[in-house]
């Protein structure tokens, strides 16, 4: 008990810092048209490569400077967050539902179900993920739904492997045997007895996966395979920033910082949530 309380106290700032950043970024993305200081697509060659506000030559209203076409960087980051979060939530949830379901079935039922699912996972994991993603998007065609689908198709195995192992461990526990004796059906036991015990892991993985989805989306838009419209994406901004790194470093650095903070926050948030969901640690 005491030990658990200590862990909880130590974890708390992590939860609040990570959650705070995510909330801030999420709200900014949702209310982008209201909070973005400029139109993210408006080009003005008179204002190209303005530095961020604390450097000489900065213009008021362009807090983080502008890119080589004179577009406001902060506004582009805020609008880019919309796509990042949509992809993060949709892809992670899709991967989670597919992977956790298969993992639960493989781990709890064992036998043939486990053998088939585990072999598929083994084969799946033999593909290099980023190349696989690029290949999938090339086949599915660019666009938001293709990106989401590609990430879900690649990353369900993460959930499957972990949840399988956890469900397998839980299934050997006496309380599962007790439920069998009491006369519960197999599916009922899987959902009522085993599932609640793997929920903390699912939550942690889900949050981690959101961070991974943000990275994959950034990679795809970096190689220009994400969404094909003009909407700004973090990966796209990074790709543009790379070209003008010597003239305007901020176009590369700020989206990178945003990306890193977001991905880090997702993983930390997940870990902290896991302990919250676990009655033994709570």
């Amino acid at each position, binding site marked *: *008990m005491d030990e658990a309380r200590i862990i909880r106290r130590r974890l708390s700032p992590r939860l609040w810092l990570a959650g705070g950043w995510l909330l801030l970024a999420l709200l900014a993305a949702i209310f982008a048209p209201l909070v973005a200081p400029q139109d993210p697509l408006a080009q003005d060659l008179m204002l190209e490569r303005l530095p961020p506000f604390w450097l000489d030559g900065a213009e008021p209203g362009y807090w983080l400077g502008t890119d080589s076409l004179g577009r406001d960087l902060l506004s582009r980051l805020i609008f880019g967050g919309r796509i990042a979060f949509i992809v993060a939530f949709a892809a992670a949830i899709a991967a989670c539902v597919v992977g956790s379901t298969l993992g639960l079935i493989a781990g709890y039922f064992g*036998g043939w179900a486990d053998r088939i699912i585990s072999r598929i996972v083994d084969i799946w994991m033999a593909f290099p993920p980023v190349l696989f993603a690029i290949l999938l998007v090339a086949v599915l065609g660019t666009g938001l739904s293709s990106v989401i689908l590609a990430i879900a198709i690649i990353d369900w195995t993460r959930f499957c492997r972990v949840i399988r192992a956890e469900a397998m461990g839980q299934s050997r*526990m*006496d*309380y599962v*045997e*007790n439920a*069998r*004796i*009491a*006369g*519960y059906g197999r599916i009922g036991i899987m959902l*009522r*007895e085993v599932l*609640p*015990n793997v*929920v903390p892991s699912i939550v942690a993985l889900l949050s981690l996966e959101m961070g991974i989805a943000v990275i994959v989306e950034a990679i795809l838009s970096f190689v220009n395979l994400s969404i094909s419209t003009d909407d700004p994406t973090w990966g796209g901004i990074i790709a543009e920033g790379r070209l003008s790194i010597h003239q305007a470093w901020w176009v590369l650095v700020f989206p990178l910082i945003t990306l890193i903070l977001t991905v880090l926050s997702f993983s930390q948030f997940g870990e902290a949530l896991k302990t919250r969901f*676990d*009655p*033994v640690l709570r």
Partner: protein
Amino acid sequence: MSACLDIANLSAVLANGQRVLRSVSLTVQPGEVHALVGESGAGKTMIGKAVLGVLPSSVRIVEGDMRLEGEDLGKLPPKARRTLIGARTALIPQDPLTALNPSRRIGPQMTDRLVRILGWSGDKADKRVRQLLDEVQIRDPDRVLKSYPHELSGGMRQRVLIAAAFAAEPRLIVADEPTTALDVTVQKQILRLIAALQREHGTAILFVTHDLGVVAKISQKVSVLYAGKVVEEAETADLFAAPRHPYTRSLMAATPRYTAPFASLKPVDETVLAGLAAEIAAADQAWRRPHG
């Protein structure tokens, strides 16, 4: 009136053909405590699991039948068998740490079974569970019902499990070394509780243990098991007064005594074990001939 549990000639094998139960026969009368005693690996727990229908998938029953209050478990379709076992039996497990679901509160875990499997109303189930908690001398049922398993001590958890086992009024309870995982002072209390509830409810118990001292205290009948074979079945009083099988005698001699704790510590006699090995080899030979 038919016996509560009647096991006849039960044999089980592992995947590699090794026999783990060797033509086991035993009968538990209604309201009787029948102890299954033997060393670890003798197959005591296996018999309990076979009765409850939760043998590991590596163990296969190849012969014999089990009747629960006259119903032949082997002849029932799986679903009807599960329902019958669920309604008429319960388990008091060995390890109270793993026998409760760690992520669910005690209350719902106890009432769920009554409501979902036996179709009781929530109120009736709640009342029943509180009554049973009172019988196992839990004085603050409100707190316990709201607790998660890890918030209770081992002894408390075992009380909860005993209450849960008796709650559905089963005809037969399999108690699988229910005191082994507990410390010595708690063991006695738990044993007394099981005995008291058993008398009160008139439930038959198949009591699996390796402890002859426990056998003497709680049971009316004993089956002594060695290597999956019943070497002696007798009334408890008769067994202790005049054990017939040399292995039983040897087992009794091996039990430490308080008067001379160290002098009395001796392993089971070698010649007895050699005799047993021969007995089992002969039995296996005889068994294999018709079974290929």
